[in-house]
């Protein structure tokens, strides 16, 4: 499932997972475990995991519409100050062929009207530097880069 390759300043992982929330959790848990046994230690408040989680959750919920038999390819590359990730799925294309805008949710409302979702793209957009999406044939390709802090190493 995963191949970690450790060039001096790069740690690369590849996963192929099914389109279920449980597979997303397993993948992220595995990534974190792999990092813990490597020389790459990211800071406790680092947000890379939430960014990868939000993209994967979005593929599960929207591209595959919660169909559990879809396949997702994930490539993650940790470098000293940057994380690069590439996601491929064969689900539905993004509406209008573009990534959602990701506005922040309005929290200045009554408690009962408080949003219970819609935070995902806001988090992805706020935390990433580079974000590109392309429909290639029947595949969705999404790439992102975000800054990370590595301690030790």
């Amino acid at each position: 499932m995963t191949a970690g390759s450790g060039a001096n300043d790069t740690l690369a992982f590849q996963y192929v997972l099914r389109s279920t929330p449980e597979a997303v959790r397993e993948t992220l848990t595995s990534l974190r475990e792999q990092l813990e046994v490597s020389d790459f230690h990211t800071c406790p408040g680092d947000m890379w995991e939430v960014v990868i989680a939000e993209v994967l959750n979005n593929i599960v919920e929207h591209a595959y519409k919660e169909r559990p038999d879809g396949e997702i390819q994930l490539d993650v590359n940790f470098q000293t100050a940057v994380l690069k990730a590439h996601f491929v799925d064969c689900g539905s294309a993004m509406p209008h062929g573009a990534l959602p805008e990701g506005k922040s949710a309005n929290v200045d409302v009554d408690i009962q009207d408080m949003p219970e979702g819609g935070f995902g793209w806001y988090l992805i957009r706020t935390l990433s530097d580079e974000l590109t999406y392309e429909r290639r044939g029947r595949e969705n390709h999404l790439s992102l880069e975000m800054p990370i802090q590595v301690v030790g190493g």
Partner: protein
Amino acid sequence: MEFSTHTQDHVMIVTVEAERIDASVAIAFKDKMREQMGGNAAQYVLDLHKVMFIDSSGLGSIVAAMKLVPQGGKMDLAGLTPAVDKVFRMTRMDSIFTIHGSAQDALAKSA
């Protein structure tokens, strides 16, 4: 999704006994919280000190739990770890909850 609970001075501390609140447990989380809200307590503190990771679905399930608090009651949060704290701050959800450093702090303030 496991919780442990402890009631003191009419405040129910609900400790989440899990490292992750994510999309795979969000619905179970909300259902479990609904069970907890059935008691007599009107004040709740959700203790998250064991939770190392939350995603937007997990965040949504905490907002949903807050809406289940009976009228006149409240639900505070306590013990946010760094990554969880950041998600609350980035989404401005820190402005709709009272957040305590720990469950003990929360009890001290309500006493």
